[in-house]
């Protein structure tokens, strides 16, 4: 890498101060150290007050070279630009992470054609998890640390050890300069000027006819505070990935059920899920009858913590209630770092149990109800004089290729039960009876016909549900996103520090005025890191107080920018 400033071998200034390698302006008196620079009349290079960056040395070794690489602002800018371009690439097509269940190897080709296929093959479908993108972020992190370290220490030293009396060239080559006649006793005049300066918030130091006024130095630390904040932010993001600090799962919670949250000792009960839509009255005329806008998604949730018998699956866990919250989209349940967010819902009712009654279809006589659970049902039931033993159960009834009854899924979409009934007036080995709790299934799978075949012509028993009160189902299912993210506080602390640094750095300016009054001639130089316009205006108003009238523009020594 090439250096912008030539390394000067003789770094001793004529004022007697020995400067480190790489120094541009003498640390003590501010005189330019480079011969060529001394002859120039251009504005001085005031970045970091002309002090040497820590890493600059004459014969750099490998460590120094790596260090210098990351210490360069030029490299930092390249890294920023590369990250920017990389981020852009990732938005061309949706990222894989936006889909819950796709086969990426075919999805991109099918959806976006050849371009999509190339996109996938280049690995851009997961840009933000790719090795090169993460490497860029890591390098930015390294650059943040090293750039800051390399500059903040020398700058701190330079600013705490400022000399009041500066070399004339240092003053006249600032961007704000005034050279004028002042026929007054230097020390008296300087003392007189101190008053308005102090009123404007400057801290003033004098040394005979020389003066140094300075304010808002803290603004100079702004950029470094920002960088510290960013480092904390990046570290916190990295820490989120550590095992145990992070959990993220999407779970289904049926209304009315207590469901265990895996990997935790918590159980969550969805007491009621509500979805509301805006009525026509609440919608603008143009939308009525055309659009459906949701108004509210809400899960009334109760969180339980397991207190005993938690792990052993053969025992019922003992639960105690710890939190109650109505979970809405912008209002998650939160308990000791565990958060539950409203994510999705399904309004399909899920059957939990029915209470059918065994009836004699010939006489109409009923033999009493029994409760048939969909999950883990009892095996035998007694109904009057009859015993029903459950032989088979199918949650999602269907027939396989060989025509045998099977369950097509574990979900109670079309439950079916095969009973063996024994009792009076039945054959000794009992009578088989197929029962479909849902009316639609009864018709679709022809329960009547099946049972007629199984029970023969003399069949007289039926299972019937007498009313809706005998059917128990979960009206809906609420999908919640359960998260634990223990590193989040640090993410916010980092972001807060960044913000603090931004405010310090951008809404205040470090302003300094040096002046020297000798032999009736006043030489004034001023420097600020921002807002030269306001700085010049301030100097004019201060000088006006001591009857020195100058024009704002005349202070501008060219290039008064930034």
């Amino acid at each position, binding site marked *: 890498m090439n250096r912008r400033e030539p390394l000067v071998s003789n770094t001793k200034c004529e004022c007697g101060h020995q400067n480190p390698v790489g120094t541009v302006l003498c640390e003590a008196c501010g005189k330019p150290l480079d011969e060529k620079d001394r002859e120039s009349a251009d504005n001085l290079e005031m970045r970091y007050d002309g002090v040497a960056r820590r890493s600059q040395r004459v014969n750099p070794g490998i460590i120094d070279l790596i260090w210098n690489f990351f210490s360069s602002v030029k490299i930092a800018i390249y890294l920023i630009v590369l990250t920017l371009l990389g981020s852009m690439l990732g938005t061309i097509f949706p990222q894989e992470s936006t889909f819950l269940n796709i086969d990426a190897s075919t999805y991109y080709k099918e959806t976006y054609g050849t371009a999509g296929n190339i996109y996938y093959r280049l690995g851009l479908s997961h840009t933000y998890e790719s090795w090169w993108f993460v*490497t860029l972020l890591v390098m930015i992190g390294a650059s943040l640390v090293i750039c800051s370290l390399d500059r903040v220490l020398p700058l701190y030293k330079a600013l705490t050890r400022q000399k009041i009396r500066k070399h004339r060239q240092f003053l006249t080559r600032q961007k704000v300069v005034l050279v004028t006649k002042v026929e007054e006793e230097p020390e008296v005049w300087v003392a007189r000027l101190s008053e308005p300066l102090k009123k404007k918030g400057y801290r003033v130091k004098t040394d005979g006819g020389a003066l140094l006024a300075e304010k808002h130095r803290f603004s100079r630390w702004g950029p470094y505070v920002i960088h510290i904040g960013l480092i904390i932010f990046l570290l916190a993001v990295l820490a989120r990935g550590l095992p145990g600090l992070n959990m993220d799962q999407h779970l289904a919670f049926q209304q009315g059920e207590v469901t265990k949250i895996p990997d935790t000792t918590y159980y969550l009960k969805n007491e009621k899920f509500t979805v509301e839509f805006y009525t026509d009255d609440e919608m603008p005329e143009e939308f009525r009858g055309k659009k459906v806008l949701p108004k509210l998604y809400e899960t009334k949730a109760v969180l339980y913590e397991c207190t005993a018998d938690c792990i052993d699956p053969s025992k019922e866990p003992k639960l105690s209630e710890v939190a109650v919250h109505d979970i809405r989209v912008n209002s998650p349940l939160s308990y000791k770092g565990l958060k539950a967010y409203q994510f999705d819902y399904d309004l399909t009712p899920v059957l939990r149990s029915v209470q059918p009654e065994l009836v004699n279809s010939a006489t109409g006589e009923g033999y009493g109800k029994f409760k048939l659970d969909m999950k883990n049902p009892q095996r035998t039931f007694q109904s009057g004089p009859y015993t029903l033993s459950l032989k088979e159960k199918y949650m999602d009834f269907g027939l396989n290729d060989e025509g045998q009854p099977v369950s097509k899924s574990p979900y109670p979409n079309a439950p079916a039960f095969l009973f063996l009934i024994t009792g009076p007036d039945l054959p000794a080995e009992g009578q088989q009876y197929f029962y479909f709790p849902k009316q639609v299934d009864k018709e679709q799978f022809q329960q009547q016909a099946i049972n007629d075949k199984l029970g023969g012509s003399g069949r007289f028993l039926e299972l019937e549900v007498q009313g809706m009160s005998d059917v128990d189902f979960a009206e809906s299912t609420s999908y919640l996103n359960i998260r634990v993210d223990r590193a989040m506080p640090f993410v916010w602390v980092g972001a807060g520090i960044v913000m603090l640094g931004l405010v310090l750095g951008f809404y205040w300016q470090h302003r300094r005025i040096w002046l020297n009054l000798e032999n009736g001639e006043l030489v004034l130089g001023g420097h600020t890191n921002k807002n030269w316009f306001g700085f010049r205006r301030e100097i004019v108003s201060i000088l006006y107080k001591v009857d020195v009238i100058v024009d704002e523009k005349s202070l501008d020594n060219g290039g008064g920018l930034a």
Partner: protein
Amino acid sequence: MGKARKPIQIIILSVILLLGGYAIGSSVFGGDGKPREGSKAPSFELLGLDGLTHTLDEYKGKSVVLNFWGSWCGPCVKEMPALQAQWEKWKDQGVVVIGVNVGEDQMTVENFIKLVDIDFPVVMDSGRSAVRSYGVSPLPTTFFINTKGKVDSIHIGQLDLDSLDGQIGKLVNP
């Protein structure tokens, strides 16, 4: 600070290298926590059909064939005879076949076992905790775990008798 500069530089650079390596590594090589070939098989604690709780640790020192299945899944049904045959063949040589039923109730499982006529141990993952820790998505999925408790190989989809035999053989005599 002059003398201490180099050591400080080295310390800072190595911390960056360490953290950076971790960041890149964890983002590129999964980090989803699912077991892969060669990684340690996650432990589980599940209720068996015998009414007792079973863990992976019980089978320490044995080769384990862990088969995730559901009664409603066609290929699972079809591969059961092959699993039963291999169980019978290898059970005296320190191999255990364990069936993990995914999310069904005891009655369904019992009926199913009777129907397909198997007698290797079956546990019930009613809360799908093992499914989660093993990162199983389609059924059937079979994990071959060696005597050291490491995942030797993973088979997604229906197993056939020959390849199953080969894989168990590899597990017993690596």
